[in-house]
């Protein structure tokens, strides 16, 4: 079987040793060769010394989901040898540092061992402990270049781009690449059957992680205030926002057209966002599940007081602290109904970094249009891993939708202003910003209030307002991104998923089709669900709801919100912390079908 441009390999190291730059180099080089490629960084919640892995999948057909089947393992961490050796596919390869003999117990008869004396060679080529350790990683990148046929000219260019201003560093990196490359070409029959062949599929693509693209979306949306409390895996979103602001938002006097507030906790972070939104800025926070738990009180206030706020939840594995460096879609229910009392929130579910960019912009428009908190639910896989996605585009005609905000002139000519009065009959009242006009003053409160903004403990006045808010949020179902649907006439089965499961589902559907199982597809992208979501569910006998959490939260949401019969919804789940793979979907669907038959 031809394995050119269709294989996966994994690199096992310890974190803090510099392997990240070597892995990034390999990933970027393959991307530049025009081949569809996926990189998954599997890292510990730790700074130095614990096991870390980097998984790279190349696939000429463009399948981007994680695969757990590895044709080649670069096993450089003695602490994980046993596990790493076991993970190699029969007939695969194991590259190890032959400076030390490999324990006999690690021998498998069905794989090929490629010993490269990385430490020895780097000790000979470099001086200084730190440099020897760092260059050992670059040296395995060189060996892989020979074994997998990575374009060395591209590697040279990448090193030049990265270290152009530091020639000494560039030289030592190049030297390390050459050391690994030369050893491999002289010792093994290069390239291996698993090899790369240049393609031309990435011409209009970029390699980007979803936190970076979401941050860029915030810049383009015109966000000026950001408040946050550091938490994995969302921290890089705020780091990226800061970076972009320093590039694009500093005036000639060196003054900042943005404010980033590192709060004392998530309770304060969302409080700052609500305060800024109330004052008229586009404001956001980025966090993960534990942060949402803490923010819930203010989220309820913003919902009831009708204050715009944008919240990025880069989901990680829960409950509690869970596994902070593993991915999950475990906060779907929590975000949909965050806070005590009757609440319901607009949620957007990007599937990749490109959508993270687009939905970030959309989130600010929706938050201000509907005067309410809006969640963007990404996850660790989307947020922190590098994805190959089509280039981001921008329409210069875009102008922010600031919603119904009365100007000083409008207030001057208005007879009266009542903050919570449904003037237009669409459930959305008019709001004013502090400082605009004496007539615009009102009291924002989380306590009971009537349509005029006054405090109330009156049953009718209270229900009048909360019912209007309910209508308002329901109306947003028409404004959130519509579900992505692929359907063929006659199909009785539906596959329904959310966010980052998209790649696994797309691949699984092709496999299922080859097995004669025709299936329609819907990826929900926004909450509250619109009619198109329930229409799809109703149109299929069985809908397989594919998601990454134990409790089938998407299925529960669909059940609660669409009124579709429970028999129509079958659950397919994987929630171990890795991104979902096609085989999870295939196995899940087949098992359900067998059971049904």
């Amino acid at each position: 079987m031809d394995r050119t441009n269709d294989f996966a390999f994994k690199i096992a190291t310890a974190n803090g040793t510099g392997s990240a730059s070597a892995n990034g180099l390999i990933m970027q080089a393959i991307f530049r060769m025009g081949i569809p490629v996926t990189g998954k960084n599997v890292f510990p919640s730790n700074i130095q010394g614990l096991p870390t892995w980097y998984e790279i999948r190349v696939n000429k057909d463009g399948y981007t989901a994680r695969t757990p089947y590895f044709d080649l393992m670069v096993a450089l961490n003695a602490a994980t040898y046993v596990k790493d050796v076991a993970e190699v596919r029969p007939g695969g390869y194991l590259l190890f540092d032959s400076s030390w003999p490999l324990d006999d117990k690690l021998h498998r008869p069905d794989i090929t061992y490629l010993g490269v004396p990385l430490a020895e060679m780097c000790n000979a080529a470099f001086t200084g402990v730190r440099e020897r350790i760092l260059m050992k990683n670059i040296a395995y990148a060189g060996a892989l270049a020979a074994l997998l046929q990575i374009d060395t000219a591209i590697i040279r260019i990448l090193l030049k781009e990265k270290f152009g201003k530091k020639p000494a560093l560039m030289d030592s990196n190049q030297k390390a690449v050459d050391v690994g490359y030369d050893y491999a070409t002289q010792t093994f029959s290069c390239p291996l059957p698993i090899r790369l062949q240049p393609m031309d599929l990435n011409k209009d693509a970029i390699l980007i992680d979803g936190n970076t693209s979401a941050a860029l979306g915030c810049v383009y949306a015109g966000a000026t205030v950001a408040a946050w409390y550091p938490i994995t895996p969302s921290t890089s979103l705020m780091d990226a926002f800061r970076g972009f602001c320093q590039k694009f938002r500093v005036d000639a006097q060196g003054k900042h057209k943005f404010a980033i507030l590192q709060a004392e906790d998530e309770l304060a972070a969302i409080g700052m966002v609500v305060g800024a939104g109330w004052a008229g800025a586009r404001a956001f926070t980025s966090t993960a599940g534990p942060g949402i738990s803490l923010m819930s009180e203010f989220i309820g206030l913003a919902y009831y007081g009708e204050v715009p706020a944008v919240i990025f939840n880069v989901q990680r594995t829960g409950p509690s602290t869970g596994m902070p460096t593993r991915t999950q879609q475990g906060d779907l229910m929590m975000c949909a109904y965050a806070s005590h009392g009757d609440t319901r929130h607009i949620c957007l579910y990007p599937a990749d970094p490109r959508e993270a960019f687009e939905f970030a912009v959309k989130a600010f428009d929706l938050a201000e249009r509907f005067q309410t908190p809006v969640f963007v639910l990404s996850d660790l896989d989307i947020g922190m891993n590098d994805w190959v996605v089509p280039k981001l585009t921008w329409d210069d005609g875009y102008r922010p939708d600031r919603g119904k905000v009365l100007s000083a002139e409008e207030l001057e000519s208005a007879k009266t202003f009542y903050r919570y009065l449904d003037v237009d009959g669409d459930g959305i009242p008019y709001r004013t910003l502090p400082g605009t006009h004496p007539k615009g003053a009102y009291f924002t409160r989380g306590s009971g209030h009537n349509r005029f903004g006054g405090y109330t403990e009156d049953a009718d006045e209270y229900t009048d307002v909360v019912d209007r808010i309910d209508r308002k949020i329901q109306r947003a179902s028409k404004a959130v991104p519509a579900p992505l649907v692929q359907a063929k006439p006659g199909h009785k089965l539906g596959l329904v998923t959310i966010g980052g499961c998209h790649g696994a589902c797309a691949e699984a559907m092709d496999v299922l089709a080859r097995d004669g199982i025709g299936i329609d597809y819907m990826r929900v992208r926004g909450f509250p669900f619109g009619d198109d979501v329930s229409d799809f569910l109703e149109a299929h006998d069985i809908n397989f709801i594919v998601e990454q959490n134990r409790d089938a939260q998407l299925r529960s949401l669909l059940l609660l919100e669409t009124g579709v019969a429970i028999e129509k919804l079958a659950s397919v789940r994987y929630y171990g912390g890795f991104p979902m793979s096609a085989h999870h979907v295939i196995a899940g669907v087949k098992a359900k079908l067998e059971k049904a038959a």
Partner: protein
Amino acid sequence: MTFLPKPKVHHPALPKNAIGLTRRDYEGTITTLCAGCGHDSITAAIIQAFWELAIAPHRVAKLSGIGCSSKTPAYFLKEAHGFNGVHGRMPALVTGANAANSEITYIGISGDGDSLSIGIGHLSHAIRRNVNLLYILENNGVYGLTKGQFSASADRGSLSKKGEANTMEAIDGCLLALTLGATFVARSFSGDKAQLVPIIKAGIAHRGFAFVDVISPCVTFNDHEGSMKSYAYTREHNVEIVRADFVPPAKEITTEYEPGGVRSVMLHDGGWVRLRKVAEDYDPTDRDRAYAYIRERQREGEIVTGLLFLSAESRDLHDQSNTVPAALTTMPYEQLCPGSAELERLQQRFR
């Protein structure tokens, strides 16, 4: 209830301030607090201070948390935006609002439960950030709305209405603020309007976090014998050590003050605060000595009041964040969005 309209009848002879408004224009709805509540006296002082400073009410934003004190923003400045947030987290709301729009005057009203228990973290960090805000802690040592539990500012040995003694040490807001690097720290008594009004005026003019702890007896739950936050106890033990007066910018400092012992500190807006020392050995610009002095007098059972500390070098949130002088909310979108060409250029980085 915090929404009872007041009749809008203005007596023609009411004096007007520099922008032609009467004190009535600075009022809010009718208070719903208990008759005799100290908080209402503070509200009156706030109204007086804003009127005297002739700040347009709609250019003020008033924020609060939850509790009796936090109801009071409804009772002053009806033309100002108000925000009655969640318990203890008003500082976070103001921090965000101030970051968004630095051109508004912010006043935050809080209580001792709000500030010193549930919200002590937020208060602490707002002080550290030096958010430009007048923060008034209406301090009665008791949870009023939930009917009489001790708050964190209740003094050790203080008796509840039911006669139970408080066994824990009190948290002193002023000492806390001094420790955290507050740039403006004052204490007053709700019953002393003559002292309180100038402090509030100076606090408004101060660029940075102005912390004002106001002992404000709770007539219903904490005004009995054995309470250390009662009217009687506070009147007896209150010792004024620094008398402040605020001289607005462009007004000359007049000679009505005694020459000896007066110290003037210029504020960011060009106004002056005149600090007349009543106690000989007190220096309101020396943080460490201020702290030590307050502690020392506390041990003698005295509550020292006045503008206790003022730093002439105050860099607020915006100074520290190096933001543009104009409010971020006034930035035109065109100045915020880099545009499509820049996006195209930028993406070379992701190749």
